[in-house]
């Protein structure tokens, strides 16, 4: 599964995207637990989850959104366009 990062999450982690094997992760929250262990940067980026928004296959979701079969999961700060 493709995991994408935007804005300061991308900067903090130092990656725009990475290929991740979700293993037993069932929800976006499970995926976060898995990602946190990848590096200190990941752990820092996911430190405060109230500042992180989640999209599963380009639809807004949350920590409880199932990721089974998803092609891409994205993490980003609250949006500030317009």
């Amino acid at each position, binding site marked *: 599964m493709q995991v994408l990062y935007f*804005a300061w999450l991308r900067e903090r982690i130092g990656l725009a995207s990475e290929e991740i094997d979700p293993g037993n992760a069932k929800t976006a929250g499970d995926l976060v637990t898995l990602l946190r262990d990848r590096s200190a940067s990941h752990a820092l980026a996911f430190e405060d989850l109230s500042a992180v928004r989640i*999209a599963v296959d*380009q639809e*807004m979701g949350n920590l409880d959104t199932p990721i089974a079969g998803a092609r891409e999961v994205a993490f*980003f*700060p609250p949006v500030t366009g*317009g």
Partner: protein
Amino acid sequence: MSVSVQRQDFDVAAETRVLTKGNGDIGAVVSFTGLVRGDPDTVRAMELEHYPGMTERALAKIVEEARARWPLDGVRVIHRVGRLMPGENIVLVLAASRHRRAAFEAAEFLMDYLKTKAPFWKREETPEGAQWVDARETDDDAMRRWTK
């Protein structure tokens, strides 16, 4: 195509002509243009990042929702990405309708939803360095008005 995400600028008069051409029912067009704020003397710029793919889907969904709520004869949304200077256009929303009230409400709804639901992120370059713009609670409040 009613939704565009692009680097280049837009022309509100030209977009209005495209939207209204040949449709004699349209009596009202409301536009919203968002601009980069800032004093050109401090050479601040704005970098706009987005999530390709999801952005277009999210905007199309917002347009669909506006069309379901108001009798609209045309809708157009253009959002720029990349590096923009103070005074430059960021976003254009156009709503065309037979009645002015519908056009006003739809345009404001589109902007309120775009601000809280479309995946764009602004980074401001200030004399003290670059920083990501914080989301504003007033934008969430503005969006919630429509769900009352």
